């Protein structure tokens, strides 16, 4: 019911814009009867109203809009001329539409009175008869503003000679209507506003810095500006907030379809749908959330007979809850399904060589559960249509961590699984600690900062070493210690800094926490805390997992933002990799920066070749029925999500073996750029692997291939997606970028 109200509200807002224009457009149409644009615009508005009416169950509105649309269609198709008389009748219809809309906004349902008179005169126009005189008068009378429904109702009642019932009484001093209290704003404009505020924050920081340096008497004004900027920042930030409902509203259908497909009975309960978060974050959690829900229905909740046998209600429950918690949003996803068999997870991990048998036995339950976030571990017994297609929990976790969030899992065998996702409220502006290493400044997001420790050598305090691994005793616990300069490979000891530091015998350790683990990071200097505006790095640099982005400092210089998770990963790699450094050197000569670890999607062609693409570029994995593929403008397309998706066949774009038979189901990898998507038809989707991309140069004549690498002992070609798409759809990327 609530959902329906929401739908109605949205419908009203949408209509208000169109209807507001209608009067004007009709009047203009009278003057330039032949203007096709005007007619088209009017037609569209009426058509939209009609379409949505049927859906919302508004028969009166629908019938008026329907006939009006038919009249307009005739005019548009030049089967009927535009005359003032006809416009008058149409305006009459517009008035009725407005009246019904106003009533809907007021009470949530259509008025009781009937509109047969208007309807009949529209019919008359449609059939080419002269409209009834009385009604045209009604129409002419009723160019009345929407916000005065009481006048309109009265006037109408008079005009119709009291034939109609009086509309429901309307309070004159009503609060703003939904369509008046909210307006639609282009998202691009909001983004621009956000950027401008970001700039303002930077300028403010710069100004404050100067004033602090100078100890200026002007600081009163500066302080005021400081406060106003902060407030403005908050306000603009709020404009970007959207309720999580926008993502959730697609779930009931998804759960229903999944449950039906797998013969289960699942009730979806959602709480806190109004919880708001930044739209970029909303976008970012959409896929992980969908995946978790899919998992819960597909693997978590049991079939009714199994449930009954276990003494549980036949109907499973999936509970979603969103809530604020400080500067964070918490989303709980709880199911009362079978839970996760920790022992099975361990066995699986041992089987896949992720764990030794010995290590498995010492693992705590929590640690063992966290194994499911490990790449390449799927405990699904069988790969079904819906989950278990490779894009697994590891990707969910990575995606959530990418936006500064975290994911926790608890599960009790036989009783269900509960996932807790924590994400920050907003991404755009975050507090950060500035540190220096190797002469460069870096920003560390405050959210991952636990504490600052100064190791004072003279006081007998020191960092100790266990077989190359540095540790620090922090309140009795051993804290692993990493050196930022070593991780980044920046020279930290220019011009006697070392001696200076040795003399001071002081070491700064920034204690950081990520995903339940903590470690210390040694930096040369700890500087101020600052509010920083997070900016994205060029896509080519996104492979550098140690950076989360960049920002502009008060002095106008760029500083990189550290990705704490990335630093932790890089740090762990360091020890293992030190011995291999020599070996790796050779590969680097070919691969350049390509020796970074990357998540790759692997798939097979139709022959024996194997291909891979960076997972980051993949929008979705699909499977299309061969008989649904159509041809349009000389290329293959498929109807997909209400649009036409151009399809590219792997064997057409790079020298792959063509298929020897014609399979009925065609797996596809969908790539998106901007608003455009394209599907690449492949032989078989294989896996998602985390591989070191050490490329061997492609053999000549292999267009569309960036190079080859070895994944799990199999030579795999890394596709050059831009090239592949460009060769099949020339100009596609240019268009997509322009869009």
């Amino acid at each position, binding site marked *: 019911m609530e959902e329906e109200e929401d739908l109605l509200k949205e419908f009203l807002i949408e209509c208000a814009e169109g209807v507001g224009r209608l009067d004007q457009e009709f009047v203009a149409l009278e003057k330039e009867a032949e203007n096709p644009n005007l007619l088209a615009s009017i037609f569209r508005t009426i058509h939209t109203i009609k379409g949505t009416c049927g859906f919302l169950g508004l028969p009166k509105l629908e019938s008026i809009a329907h006939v009006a649309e038919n009249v307009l269609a005739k005019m548009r198709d030049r089967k009927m001329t535009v005359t003032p008389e006809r416009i008058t009748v149409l305006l009459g219809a517009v008035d009725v539409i407005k009246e019904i809309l106003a009533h809907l906004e007021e009470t949530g349902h259509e008025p009781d009175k009937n509109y047969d008179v208007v309807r009949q005169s529209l019919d008359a126009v449609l059939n080419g008869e002269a409209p009834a005189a009385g009604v045209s008068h009604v129409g002419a009378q009723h160019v009345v503003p929407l916000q005065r429904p009481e006048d309109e109702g009265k006037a109408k009642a008079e005009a119709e000679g009291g034939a109609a019932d009086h509309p429901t009484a309307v309070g004159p001093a009503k609060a703003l209507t939904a369509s008046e209290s909210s307006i639609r704003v282009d998202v691009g404009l909001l983004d621009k506003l956000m950027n401008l505020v970001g700039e303002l924050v930077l300028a403010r920081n710069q100004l404050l810095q100067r004033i602090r340096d100078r100890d200026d008497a002007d600081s009163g004004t500066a302080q005021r500006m400081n406060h106003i900027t902060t407030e403005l920042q908050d306000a603009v930030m709020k404009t970007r907030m959207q309720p999580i409902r926008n993502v959730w509203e697609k779930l009931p259908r998804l759960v229903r379809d999944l449950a039906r497909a797998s013969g289960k009975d699942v009730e979806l309960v959602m709480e806190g749908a109004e919880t708001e978060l930044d739209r970029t974050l909303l976008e970012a959690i959409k896929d992980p959330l969908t995946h978790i829900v899919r998992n819960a229905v597909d693997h978590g909740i049991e079939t009714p007979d199994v449930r009954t046998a276990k003494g549980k209600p036949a109907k499973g429950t999936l509970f979603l809850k969103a809530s604020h918690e400080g500067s964070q949003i918490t989303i709980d996803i709880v199911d009362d399904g079978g839970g996760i068999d920790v022992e099975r997870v361990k066995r699986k991990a041992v089987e896949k060589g992720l764990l030794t048998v010995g290590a498995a036995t010492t693992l705590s339950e929590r640690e063992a559960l966290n194994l499911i976030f490990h790449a390449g571990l799927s405990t699904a017994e069988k790969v079904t249509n819906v989950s278990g297609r490779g894009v697994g929990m590891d990707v969910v976790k990575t995606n959530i961590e990418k936006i500064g969030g975290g994911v926790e899992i608890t599960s009790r065998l036989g009783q269900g699984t509960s996932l807790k996702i924590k994400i920050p409220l907003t991404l755009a502006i975050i507090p950060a600690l500035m540190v220096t290493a190797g002469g*460069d400044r870096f920003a560390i997001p405050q959210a991952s900062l636990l504490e600052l420790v100064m190791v004072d050598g003279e006081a007998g305090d020191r960092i100790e070493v266990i077989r190359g691994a540095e540790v620090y005793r922090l309140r009795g616990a051993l804290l692993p210690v990493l050196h930022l300069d070593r991780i980044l490979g920046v020279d930290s000891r220019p011009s006697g800094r070392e001696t200076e530091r040795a003399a001071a015998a002081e070491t700064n350790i920034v204690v950081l926490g990520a995903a339940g683990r903590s470690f210390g990071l040694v930096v040369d200097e700890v500087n101020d805390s600052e509010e920083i505006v997070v900016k994205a790095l060029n896509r*080519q*640099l996104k492979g550098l997992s140690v950076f989360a982005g*960049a920002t502009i400092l008060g002095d106008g210089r*760029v500083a990189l933002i550290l990705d704490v998770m990335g630093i932790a990963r890089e740090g762990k790699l360091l020890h293992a990799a030190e011995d291999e450094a020599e070996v790796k050197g050779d590969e680097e000569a070919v691969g*350049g*920066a*390509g020796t970074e670890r990357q998540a790759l999607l692997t798939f097979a062609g139709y022959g024996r070749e194997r291909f891979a693409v960076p997972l980051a570029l993949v929008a979705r994995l699909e499977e299309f029925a061969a008989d649904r593929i159509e041809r349009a403008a000389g290329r293959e397309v498929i109807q997909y999500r209400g649009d036409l998706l151009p399809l590219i066949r792997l064997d057409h774009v790079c020298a792959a073996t063509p298929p020897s038979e014609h399979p009925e189901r065609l797996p596809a990898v969908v790539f998106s750029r901007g608003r455009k998507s394209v599907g690449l038809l492949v032989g078989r989707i294989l896996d998602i692997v985390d591989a070191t991309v050490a490329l061997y140069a492609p053999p000549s004549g292999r267009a569309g291939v960036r190079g080859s690498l070895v994944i799990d002992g199999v030579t795999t070609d890394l596709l050059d997606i831009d090239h592949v798409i460009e060769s099949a759809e020339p100009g596609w990327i240019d268009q997509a970028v322009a869009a």
Partner: protein
Amino acid sequence: MDSRKEDRRVSVSSPPGGEERRQATADRRHDQNRQYATFFLDDHFLGVEVRRVQEVLTTQGLTRVPLAPPTVAGLINLRGQIVMAVDLRARLGFPTRTEGTALMNMVVQTLDGPVSLLVDRIGDVIDVRPDLFTPSPETVDERLRAVTEGVYKLKDRLLLALNTEAATQVAVSG
């Protein structure tokens, strides 16, 4: 955009003689002439199609990116937007810049947003006739050939036409 173009002309540091300019005037009669924004790396004369160029800037404060390939010179602040700067010398296999060489930023538009190409010196914007175009000879250094569309045989010198998409690819060299 127009005013920016003006800026670019103004910002030109010692244009290399009037020959190109005369030629440009003569070429304008042809329909399909292409406009190139030119620059120098050592004594090599290179050009980027004008429609790809966003703006030209003098030396900017560069923030190096640790762990990035050497072709990434760093990041610059372009009026609040963070832009990757590509060391074109490294990218094209030229010897490392000597101290004291001027460092200009030619900001070009790519699929991944604007990217700055670090060059020695900026030249004129010139018109070139399509019939002067030829693919790069095979003897040219592979690294250079991979990022050029070809060569325009101008009257007194050769113009290497840079492929901006290829030139700004730094993740995988070659």
